[in-house]
């Protein structure tokens, strides 16, 4: 068990490209931290730096407050589960689990005890004499976790460990990982590009984009109070709708989506006094798909573009019919309960809960 710190960490490649830039993060003892972001955002690089597979260009990596930049992977006592599991193909499951213990020069009796203990915990005892090619995807995943856990590491790293599994198995193993991590209390850093995995697994989530940390916090916190439009659109499926807004001093209203919706400015200013700085400035507004509803005010006429029916709910893609020319209208999506009742091309009235309205500066930073 240990704390992990990234202090102003940079990773620069010889060609000058930067995978990680001024990365700061503190992972608490026993915490499950999920690094999430799109491909190429630097999340796997952050993991590889900590594992000691790549050297840090600038900054400091600390485990339990001690600098580990120069330590070998083994000395850091970190275990890692790779995306493709990286099981040694020529060794049986038992030998795979035993390999790190041999490297630690543990006596045979201790090696056997640990292998049996780990195999029992992960339910792979009956697979010990098989080779990796004789295992299913889920079994390989478990063995890879076993090889990592058998060392009793201080920090457990997982690099998209579920991405090679089918949806059903992924859901099952996801909950197994969560309960195992809680049971063992090992500090874990988990990398994924899947926001559902991030939301369900993480004690905290760190969202990355182009090598920079965008926001770090509890899943619900990030969902409810995103720091910028990137985090807002990345978390949630579908992500938050982002569209143009304009606060009009004369009418004392906030005009949304080309004037399709208009809400009084006063209550918003009371809630977010800083908004006063942005009056008469172009803004970005954000609404989660579930914030829409046919009933609450303000109501605007919208044109249905398409409807995805999911049985218990439906995703309605629509354009608000404001003063904006048709070519500039933004398509938004609403999550409405119940089966489909709308028709494509139909114009309906749709409102939203103004308490759920997010406002961002034109360059995407949250206001208030």
């Amino acid at each position, binding site marked *: 068990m240990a704390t992990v710190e990234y202090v102003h960490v940079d990773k620069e490649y010889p060609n000058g490209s930067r995978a990680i830039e001024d990365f700061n993060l503190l992972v608490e003892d026993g915490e499950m931290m999920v690094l999430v972001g799109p491909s190429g955002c630097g999340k796997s690089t952050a993991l590889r730096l900590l594992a000691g597979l790549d050297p840090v260009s600038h900054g400091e990596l600390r485990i339990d407050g001690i600098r580990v930049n120069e330590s070998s992977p083994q000395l850091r006592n970190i275990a890692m589960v790779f*995306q493709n599991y990286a099981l040694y193909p020529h060794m049986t499951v038992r030998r795979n689990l035993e*390999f*790190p213990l041999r490297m630690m020069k543990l006596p045979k009796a201790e090696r056997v005890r640990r292998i049996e203990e780990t195999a029992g915990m992960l339910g792979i005892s009956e697979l010990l004499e098989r080779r990796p090619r004789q295992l299913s995807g889920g079994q390989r995943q478990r063995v890879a976790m076993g090889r990592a856990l058998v060392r009793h590491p201080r920090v457990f790293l997982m690099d998209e460990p579920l991405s090679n599994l089918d949806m059903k198995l992924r859901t099952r193993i996801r909950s197994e990982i969560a309960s195992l991590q809680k049971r063992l209390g090992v500090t874990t850093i988990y990398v994924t590009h899947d926001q559902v995995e991030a939301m369900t697994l993480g004690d905290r989530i760190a969202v990355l984009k182009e090598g920079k940390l965008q926001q770090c916090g509890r899943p619900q916190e990030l969902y409810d109070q995103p720091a910028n439009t990137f985090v807002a659109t990345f978390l949630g499926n579908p992500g938050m709708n982002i569209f143009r807004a304009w606060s009009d001093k004369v009418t004392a209203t906030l005009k949304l989506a080309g004037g399709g919706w208009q809400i009084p400015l006063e209550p918003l200013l009371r809630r977010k006094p800083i908004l006063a700085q942005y009056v008469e400035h172009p803004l970005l507004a954000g609404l989660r798909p579930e914030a829409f509803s046919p009933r609450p005010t303000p109501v605007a006429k919208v044109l249905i573009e398409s409807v995805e029916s999911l049985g218990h709910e439906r995703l309605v893609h629509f354009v608000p019919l404001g003063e904006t020319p048709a070519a500039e209208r933004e398509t938004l999506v609403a999550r409405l309960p119940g089966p489909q009742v709308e028709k494509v091309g139909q114009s309906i009235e749709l409102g939203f809960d103004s308490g759920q309205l997010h406002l961002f500066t034109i360059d995407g930073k949250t206001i208030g």
Partner: protein
Amino acid sequence: MKRRLIIPFTYLCLLLCALLFISPIGLLLAGSLKPDDLVLVESGSWRALWPASASLDNYRDVFSRVDFTHYLLNSLFINGMILGLGLLLNSIAGYAFARLSWRGRGLLFNLVLAVMIIPLEAIAVPLFYIVSLLGWRDTYLVQILPFIANAFSIYLFYTYFIGMPRELEEAAHIDGAGVVRTYFTIILPNAKPVFASVAILTFLTQWGAFLWPLLVTSGESVRPLPLAIATFHGLPPLRWGDLFAFGVMMVLPILSLFLLFQRLFVRGVAATGIKG
């Protein structure tokens, strides 16, 4: 109808091709089992491939006329050393080029690729001059040392290693294995196909080596089989049956090596992209 005819026709063509390629070996084997006087007499007919009165007399003759075992041991020793040391050295070099990062790697690798196109015949004379200066003539060393490092073998190993998942090595490093241990315990056991391919290709090239041993050896004590068969050919009386028996015994080691590693060889060829 057309399709029905094409398939048997294709098989017939393939069969004829196979016979064409096998016939010299068949001729060699049949000739080695025939009485010496029949070898040339029957060579123009189908009987050339059929030993009617087969015996091992020619093989016994070979052993009584020359010290075949001595030459065979010479060849096995020289080729065994080239093979063993070559596999170790070239595979390590291939791994270093494919996986380790070090200054000058790109330049040196390009040099290795350039060396591949230089034939031995082109450098035989300067090489002969060097080994003469070193006083290595008429030794085993002179027949082994120049052939251990091989650019083509390094290239084959490089091609194979570059295609192996990097995560295997990274997992081993995290588990606590250094570069050397990772190479011997993780990489090497997973690279059997390329080792088999390189072994067979090296053995094929070196087993029949004639020019270099002829240049650097003068005494019989360190000479390999290809020189021995040439000497045997000139040894009166000329007996074709004996010569054929000598040939069969010379082919056997390489044939058994190929049969032993055939499956791995094919996999290695597929993995490294070698084409014949």
